């Protein structure tokens, strides 16, 4: 990424990557936490949808901040994802859209803090839940 592609520097990079992998295997800190490859076929469409949602809720949050109409609420919802990766994606997506933050997670119950009632209704309508479940199913 530095714009230098001489053989020495490239090979040093490859060697240090290999050494890192060797050391992690040797130190036994590899676990079953890995990159969920089965997300990839639908990832692009999901990302575009998420960016659209983020833009909309950004404008809503800006309005709330400028016109002082905040009305915070705290509530729990259930998630329908089967895998841990799906739950993490769902919780991160909730936190990534401004106006809603996941505060606690236990099994498949999430506690969400919303800036106003309408943000809360958006989460409770579970459209995002369905989208993440659809993403999780892969192709």
């Amino acid at each position, binding site marked *: 990424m530095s714009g230098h592609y001489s053989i020495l520097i490239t090979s040093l990079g490859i060697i240090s990557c290999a050494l890192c992998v060797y050391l992690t295997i040797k130190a036994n800190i590899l676990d079953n936490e890995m990159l969920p490859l089965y997300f990839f076929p639908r990832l692009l469409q999901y990302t575009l949808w998420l960016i659209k949602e983020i833009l909309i809720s950004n404008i809503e949050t800006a309005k709330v901040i400028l016109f002082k109409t905040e009305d*915070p609420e705290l509530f729990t919802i259930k998630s329908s994802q089967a895998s841990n990766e799906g739950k993490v994606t769902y919780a991160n997506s909730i936190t990534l859209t401004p106006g809603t933050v996941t505060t606690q997670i236990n099994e498949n119950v999430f506690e969400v803090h919303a800036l106003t009632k309408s943000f809360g209704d958006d989460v409770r309508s579970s459209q995002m839940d369905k989208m993440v479940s659809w993403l999780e199913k892969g192709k």
Partner: protein
Amino acid sequence: MIDSIINYSSIASLILGILFILIGSIGILRLPDVFSRIHASGMIDTAGTAFIILGMCLQSGISLITAKLIFIGIFIFFTSPITGHVTANLARKKGLKPISNNKGETL
């Protein structure tokens, strides 16, 4: 012609990013409690950085710098919700009560 279109859209995108960061900063100062302030900081993390990175990408054209900027954007996109969640979770665990009619219970 195309040059000036790219230039103006990059300036517009930078101004939009600055506006979102300004509103987010006002929100951090003005909102009543930790949980509400996280929403304002989430706004800076998503729209603010996204628009500023988009503006800088348009300025630099197709080059190595654009690739680096996109990587920075992706990493911020993945890490900012984690910081938000950790802050909120710690505040809940330490017993901070949010300003709302439902005070919540420990899950």
